[in-house]
């Protein structure tokens, strides 16, 4: 296959970015999208040009490092699939493919397609944990947890923190991410203890990082590679309202 690639190039956060056009020849349908970019980079380096920087690591859809908005869609056209697991058989010979970074105020540019997603870490530092030290935990089976509740917690915990929800949202809201983290812990008895404090702190941290507010577009759910449902956002909003009204938090 032959493809025309329109790729966002930006040297660093302070310089203006622009699209560059490249021709990708010899694209095999069995290549992953990132392997196609590897080949582009090989060609660029061999021509003494600078390669396109993009984030990636595990290349098996679990570390959440890879990103990219492909033809306007975060993680590209295939449902429930990270960019690293997207294969070129999803494209046709002769296609033009536009490749951009995850754009949001909360994700400052680093270089080319790489952005800084450390805002997610800071939101979690504000309360995304159970306050328990190492040692002295009771026997794991001393606290039975019903399968349905455990499964719901797991569905939320499946979030890989990639940030596609933010990139897809017209308001650059991070509410799918934040609500999934809150739901994971609040659906477990050991995490429910600190729920009210947690939800207030994390919502405030999220707002402080410059992410927008949910207006029910549901674009986040549509692109989420782990299919996290938007119902968690409603849970979070209820939890926040209740916590704020009862002033149980700091």
């Amino acid at each position, binding site marked *: 296959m032959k493809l025309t690639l329109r790729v966002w190039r930006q040297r660093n956060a302070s310089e203006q970015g622009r699209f560059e056009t490249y021709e990708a020849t010899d694209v095999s349908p069995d290549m992953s999208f990132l392997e196609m970019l590897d080949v582009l980079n090989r060609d660029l*380096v061999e021509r003494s040009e600078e390669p396109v920087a993009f984030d990636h690591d595990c290349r098996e859809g679990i570390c959440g490092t890879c990103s990219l908005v492909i033809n306007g869609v975060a993680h590209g056209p295939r449902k429930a699939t990270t960019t690293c697991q997207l294969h070129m058989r999803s494209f046709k010979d002769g296609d033009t493919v536009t490749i951009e970074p995850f754009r949001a105020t909360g994700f400052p540019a680093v270089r080319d397609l790489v952005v800084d997603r*450390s805002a997610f870490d800071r939101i979690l530092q504000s309360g995304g*944990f159970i306050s328990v030290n190492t040692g002295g*935990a009771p026997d794991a089976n001393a606290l039975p947890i019903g399968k349905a509740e455990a499964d719901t917690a*797991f569905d939320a915990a499946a979030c890989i923190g990639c940030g596609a929800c933010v990139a897809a949202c017209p308001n650059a809201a991070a509410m799918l991410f934040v609500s999934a983290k809150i739901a994971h812990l609040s659906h477990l008895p*050991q995490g429910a203890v600190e729920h009210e404090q947690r939800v207030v702190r994390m919502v405030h941290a999220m707002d402080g990082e410059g992410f927008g507010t949910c207006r029910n577009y549901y674009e986040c759910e549509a692109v989420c590679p782990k299919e996290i449902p938007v119902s968690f956002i409603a849970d979070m909003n209820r939890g926040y309202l209740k916590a704020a009204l009862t002033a149980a938090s700091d």
Partner: protein
Amino acid sequence: MNLDAKIPSGPIADKWDNHRFDMKLVNPANKRKFKVLMVGSGLAGGSAASTLAELGYDVECFCFQDSPRRAHSIAAQGGINAAKNYQNDGDSVHRLFYDTVKGGDFRSREANVYRLAQVSANIIDQCVAQGVPFAREYGGQLANRSFGGAQVSRTFYARGQTGQQLLLGCYAGLNRQIAAGKVRMHPRTELLDIVIVDGTARGIVTRDLVTGKIQSWAGDTVVLATGGYSTVFYLSTNAMGCNVTATWRAHKRGAGFANPCFTQIHPTCIPVSGDHQSKLTLMSESLRNDGRVWVPKRADDDRQPGEIPDAERDYYLERKYPSFGNLAPRDIASRSAKEVCDEGRGVGPGKRGVYLDFRDSVERVGKQGVSERYGNLFDMYERITDENPYERPMRIYPAPHYTMGGLWVDYNLMSNVPGLHVIGEANFSDHGANRLGASALMQGLADGYFVLPYTIGHYFATYSPDKQPITTDHPEFKRAEAEVNARIERLLNVQGSKTVDSFHKRLGRIMWEGCGMGRNAQGLTAALEQIPALREEFWSGVRIPGSGSEFNIELEKAGRVADFLEFGELMCRDALARDESCGGHFREEHQTADGEAVRNDEEYCHASVWEHKGDDQEPVMHREALDFENVALATRSYK
């Protein structure tokens, strides 16, 4: 080289308890005076960093990823072992210990393995308290499954993403300490050297991967939790960023490298599809609980799998190992796959593949039942291969996955360099020549939560590094920084014509051919000639665009590949020196008539520990003799 393992005396079951009492303590008020430089933030580094901070130590934590949550521990799929005996099926600390020593083909250190089995149960308790959503039964109790090399169900799991859930738990604990100001986290920061002052590890030199800034950090101990080196093969199941740089630089500063040739080739990975391939994807070993491995009985059988009747299929693991069957340990399952493919009975494009067939499971428990257990793995397989594994057997082939070798450590997890601790996959101690499934997560968390937090205090109380305060103005830091800068300059100045990846791929092919699943003296000798030649070509032919003072992806990779080009040689040298077959190290000269590994306990019942003597000198091998007092040395059999 001092290789005193400092194994406590007394019966094996009492060693750790006695040692915990014998070790010196640091007064709680004094703990904040000790600074720990933690390199790596996966399961081992993350758990150690948070636990040490909870105890009151001052921790600086570094990772090359953009967040600690992305460390490669996250990719572990299948599970984590623990001797809980919740299933009442005869498990015990001693059985987990026994299985691990036997699984490692008698090349691990008994005392370390016993301690690992002892603390395994605490890990599960700790993780549940943190909110790790392990799989549960309808009654609310934790579920278990079985894994290769064991006949009990002791593996705890979270669907096919146990590593991600454990790492998120560990990362949550780390976040809590970061918020409390007790851990300062430095993401996108890579270690480039270790600084030794008066014989003890006192600091590191790092590069900020975004700005390119080179910086020194002084502390009272350095802990390496930097994972394994499977990417020396280029194609492996490891993440693209995994590397040997931290442990290799430490080795060049005096730390012994133990058993570098002990690598694990995982039997169930998706086969290679073409030259463009950048990594291989693991399909969890748990699939072997329900999938049956087979190839056609006849060579070059080109029929579709569904058209081949049972009588013409060879379920070779079930045939060769009737008692363990498809759950034979990884080294044995991998070698058997290579064997049948070498006979021309492989399947799929290139004929380097075997079937992992779920037909019988779908008949037994239905598609829904299979999907509940392995749904996400089946989806992943379908995304990559465009084949539906509910209808057509998966094609799998072995791929480099884990490295049992690593920096030598004593019972306290300290290398031969005082003050340099090494935990998790980066050290060598617990898995011998082959690691059993679901034991890597167990070891990482055991080291980080329950071993290092005790032994590090003993180091501080014994060596009192706080009595010799050191800053980064010390000449040793200046020297190390200058060397790091010079090396970066040298890489950038080569200005050749070939990409870093092209050298990495060529090294990978040399390693896979010469030092992969089957090794022999001739192949290893050839590799030992090819690697230095390739290294020379790299240093005169690599092209790295851009500068050192910016985000430079090629420069990052070049530094790592340059280290692999040195390390690969040591691996082959170690494989050549170990003239026996054991676990994942299969020397073709040493096998039984039916292709089983033949150990030589008379001559090789030791850990081989290599000492760096300088870039132009041959390294020197030292031995730590391994004593088996509790598990009798025996030929490993899974028949």
